[in-house]
């Protein structure tokens, strides 16, 4: 085994360790956004797909790379957007959320 593979193994183990430490502290309240967030982040495989699609080595690699770029981009764009959409909805008591409270309707009730 070459030295670079050993270093890569170090990186993997340490990153996994950091991930474990952080993610065990994520409350179950945010487990769905956590999943969509890690999904978006792991779409970093786009980086590998870009190289395959753009280095013009052979036709097979280019086409496979193209499909891979498409799939990974779906996750990057869709993943970060949907995570943001979800996180926007979580609000503590007393603060109006994105949708706001339907005050007009309440006012009508009071009259009735």
């Amino acid at each position, binding site marked *: 085994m070459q030295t*670079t*593979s050993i270093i*890569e193994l170090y*990186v*993997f183990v340490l*990153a*996994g360790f*950091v*991930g*474990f430490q952080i*993610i065990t502290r*994520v409350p*179950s*309240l945010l*487990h*769905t956004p*956590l*999943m*969509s967030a*890690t*999904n*978006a*982040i*792991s779409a*970093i*495989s786009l*980086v*590998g*797909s*870009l190289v*395959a699609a*753009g*280095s*013009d*080595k052979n036709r*097979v*690699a280019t086409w*496979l*790379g193209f*499909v*891979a770029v*498409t*799939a*990974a*981009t*779906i*996750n990057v*764009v*869709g*993943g970060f957007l949907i995570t943001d*959409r*979800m*996180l926007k909805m*979580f609000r503590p008591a007393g*603060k109006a959320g*994105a949708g*706001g*409270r339907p005050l007009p309707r309440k006012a009508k*009730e009071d009259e*009735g």
Partner: protein
Amino acid sequence: MSAAELFTQASYLAASVLFILGLRSLTKPDSARRGMQQAAVGMLLAIVGTLTKEEIVDYKFIIAGLSVGTVIGYPLGMFVPMTAMPQRIAISHMFGALAATLVGIAEFYTLGDGAQVSHATMAALGFEVMFGALTITGSFMAFGKLQEFLPGVPVTFRGQNAVSGVLFAVTVGLFAWLVYQPHTPWAFYVMCVLGLFIGVSLVLPIGGADMPVVISLLNSYAGLASSATGFAIGNEVLIIAGALDGASGFILSMVMSKAMNRSFSNILFGAFGKPPEKGAKAATGLAVKPVSAEDAAIQLGYARSVIVVPGYGMAVAQAQHAVRELADLIEKNGGEVKYAIHPVAGRMPGHMNVLLAEANIPYDKLKEMEEINGEFRNTDVALVIGANDVVNPAARNDRSSPIYGMPILNVDQAKSVIVMKRSMNPGFAGIENELFYNDRTTMLFGDAKSSLEKLVAEVKMNAAG
């Protein structure tokens, strides 16, 4: 190292740091949004850093892929309803795994069909393609079950265990052979195809109620496949992001299986060859007490404390907004409303929290099981909306029950219980629920959403009159 190469590496390092900080921000709901936006910036940096690489000479296909991906990804991000989140996440695992697998195949093909691949690189490539392939089909199967174009019940046949076992053994055998002898194209491509079959055979026999575990597990696999891609092409940011994803999926699967009191292997292989067991206690001779919306509304109108227990039924009926409307009325009458969230309620981790947050319910009212279980005994009304197994007392006191030992919400300790349910059909696990026959329990039958709307109208009328 050239200046361009230096820039690329710096962008990867920055991206890695921003990813980790982004995930750390998810430990607190207030900081989460900003943190994830920073992570998105990290992603953008890494993409720009890659595009400036000297290896990249042709931008045609890159631009095409980025455009098509954006056109498909944007609606998937912006317009998918929150109730469809489990299948949305399942399909995105498929896209992630697809990208990793195709990069692996392209790499293998480019390196002379394995002729120029070292043993170590082959191990990474093989792992990437095997896990990638099984995640592609596995996620698609999960998507199909959640979207309901595939049967949600476990699909089993005689000798399934043997078939799956042989399939798995052959695939691992090919993988081992490839590491020993990388220049074996046929073995590589056969392994890819077998990987696809493993994904199908893995998820087909798993039932709807076990989906939270399956989705978490597929999350982990997709991450590991990405990480293996990093090993194969020597890219550290891929290794790091993949490891984070892998760790997250792994932790979530552990949390989910603990909440069901089942081991990993039990969920993955438990369904093989055996239909869901019938509960040991048959409910013959016992009668449930149906209640009308009028009576239930009076009960709720006078309640000082109410705990809402949502389940998958609430998601199916898309009743979260009606829940919030009812809760507002109860609070206006001076009652207190809290929400008890079981870890496996719904079809994916945290499913209920997202739905209730969408209905604008503040997150400090959403309580985890450990936090709220002691409060049921002092609660006037526990309102169970489309939940079943997670409130079944058999988990506590019936040793012969298949769910015995699973931690449950102590709904049966509340002063009174209203269960909203479509019909008397048992839940996914096919187990009778004693709670429904309890003296203090009344059943409000019908679609959760229309029942809630009736309740809202009744409570309003009572308050006005």
